[in-house]
């Protein structure tokens, strides 16, 4: 494992067993690594397995196969003290700021709970830490005695971020942290994420479906489709020269807020819909919607290979 990788995911699988012996392969063979201090964006449409990936990495789900290495250690083999340390080092910010905060706890209690569990701070020191955290995320210390329902969506998301930061993690998984927010508030929260990263040297796994926002915050981006990674590249490269037809489609489908550009550009309107992950197509998962699909695509899954240095894609055309 490379020295500067904080997280390495090797052939990660998460299969859900459903009734009638059906198996839903939500995540099916992912390989990627995240460097210390960077932001790795994971994008894809609903049902592609991006949230399941995040939840499996932090062990909200147990993986069905593959390895997750955090700071060089196998996460799934951790137990006891090690597991507790891992829980401290990795935290999560959830999508829905309305559902992810306990409505019966004050903000101060929500933020302080982790500190108590991990025995970090108590008494006056804890109170001071909570005030400090609230200020860091752009709220103020009087907010500690209030309840979640007294806050707007953007403010709640700030509380969720403060909770994640409370136990001083190294790594934060943010699962669609801005998609429930208004555009102008989205920008506020993204700026906060960037500022906190700069101040605290955090590493982010940023999961979202909005490629424009992900591109803005991420250093590198992975694109998922039906449980598989189809492309990984730096965000600039992915935008300038997307290699996989799915990435090209995804980029082209984003409406540009500029009428002139809109009129001129040629768009790839994707055909059809995402197939059911219960019954995925043979070979390449994207072949049923791909404008370049060939016979070979139905036969075999294209290998995930390094096309250019640091730019990976899984497509038979490459």
């Amino acid at each position, binding site marked *: 494992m490379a020295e500067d990788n904080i997280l390495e995911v090797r052939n990660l699988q998460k299969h859900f067993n459903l009734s009638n012996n059906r198996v839903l392969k939500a995540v099916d063979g992912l390989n990627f690594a995240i460097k210390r201090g960077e932001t790795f964006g994971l994008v894809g*449409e609903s049902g592609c397995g991006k949230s399941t990936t995040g939840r499996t990495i932090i062990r909200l789900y147990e993986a069905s196969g593959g390895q997750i290495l955090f700071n060089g250690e196998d996460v799934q083999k951790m137990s006891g003290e090690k597991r507790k340390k891992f829980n401290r080092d990795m935290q999560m910010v959830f999508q829905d700021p309305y559902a992810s905060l306990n409505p019966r706890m004050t903000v101060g209690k929500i933020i302080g709970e982790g500190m108590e569990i991990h025995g970090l701070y108590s008494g006056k020191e804890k109170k001071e830490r909570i005030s400090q955290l609230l200020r860091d995320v752009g709220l103020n210390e009087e907010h500690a005695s209030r309840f979640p329902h007294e806050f707007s969506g953007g403010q709640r998301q700030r509380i969720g971020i403060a909770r994640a930061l409370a136990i001083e993690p190294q790594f934060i998984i943010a699962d669609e942290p801005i998609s429930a927010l208004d555009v102008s508030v989205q920008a506020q929260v993204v700026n906060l994420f960037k500022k906190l990263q700069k101040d605290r040297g955090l590493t982010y796994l940023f999961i979202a479906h909005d490629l424009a926002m992900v591109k803005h915050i991420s250093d590198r981006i992975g694109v998922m489709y039906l449980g598989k990674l189809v492309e990984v590249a730096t965000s600039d490269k992915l935008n300038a020269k997307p290699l996989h037809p799915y990435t090209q489609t995804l980029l082209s489908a984003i409406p540009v807020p500029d009428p002139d550009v809109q009129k001129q550009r040629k768009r790839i309107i994707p055909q059809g819909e995402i197939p059911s992950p219960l019954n995925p197509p043979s070979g390449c998962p994207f072949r049923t919607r791909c404008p370049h699909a060939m016979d070979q695509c139905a036969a075999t899954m294209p290998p995930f290979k390094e096309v250019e240095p640091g730019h990976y894609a899984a497509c038979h055309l490459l």
Partner: protein
Amino acid sequence: MGKPILEVNNLRVSFKMYAGEVQAVRGVSFTLDKGEVLAIVGESGCGKSVTAQTIMRLIPSPPSYIKEGSSILFDGKHEISKMSESQMQNIRGNEMGMIFQDPMTSLNPTMTVGAQISEGILKHQKKSKSEAMKRASELLTLVGMSNADERLHQYPHELSGGMRQRVMIALSLACNPKLLIADEPTTALDVTIQAQIIDLLRDIQEKTETSIILITHDLGVVAEMAHKVIVMYAGKVVERGTLEDIFYNPRHPYTWGLLRSVPRLDSDKNAELDSIPGTPPDLYAPPVGCAFAARCPYAMKVCKEIDPEHFHVNDGHSAACWLNHPEAPEVEMPVGIGRGAHG
């Protein structure tokens, strides 16, 4: 463009609540011509959905009240704000159609797709059941669903989100409405499906020349579909104009803020995104003066005291901001807006 299909004049809608009166819409006026697509943009709580739902009289009263002096003139002859429920039932689904945001919850789960589409046709048109079903099948084909005859017998839960939104569009078009209100029609959909649905709506609009009110917070969707735009903030129209006016020559700081908070695919990654600081005002007690003043970086003394009227910029383009007053200081439009900003 012919005569207006809809004229809304000084529309004011309030909700009487236990804690007081929420002034959700505070004097909205606009006209919509035949065959035109008007986008209403703004953040949650700005009153855009209440405006749209009031045009269809979908909000129960109480708690909502259309205030004295409001006027909604539809098709030059129907004064919507004064109509009774039974009069509205002849218009709703017949001359006006609506596409809701959430296709998961706005279709009836216990009725087949065919039954839901033909329900409106049977109510409003003198057609037999089999004729209505035939029309339903044609509509499903029009909205791009294959095997339309089979789909008629399916239930909503058997369809994907994109397919349900197509059913909803078919449903809203069933009686060839003159006006279609689309309330966040693509917000719940994935981006590739969104592209398909926008394409479909545009195609249908061109074919049928229906007038559309498009409510959205996504400026990208606006740029793809709309002819005219009104920007709403805290229950008021703060700027109105053509698509080009709003995107290339916006005159209200709130419009600037909205345009600048959208990340562009080619924007500088290291730069901070421009956000609008603060949150919208409480509509239980709207502020005196301009409602945006508290968040506006250009706010002057007058802004906090007197609410600005609309200043005329050019034909059809106006903005409710004191900066457009002849005696106001010159303020340059911030960078990142205007023609060519998106390379």
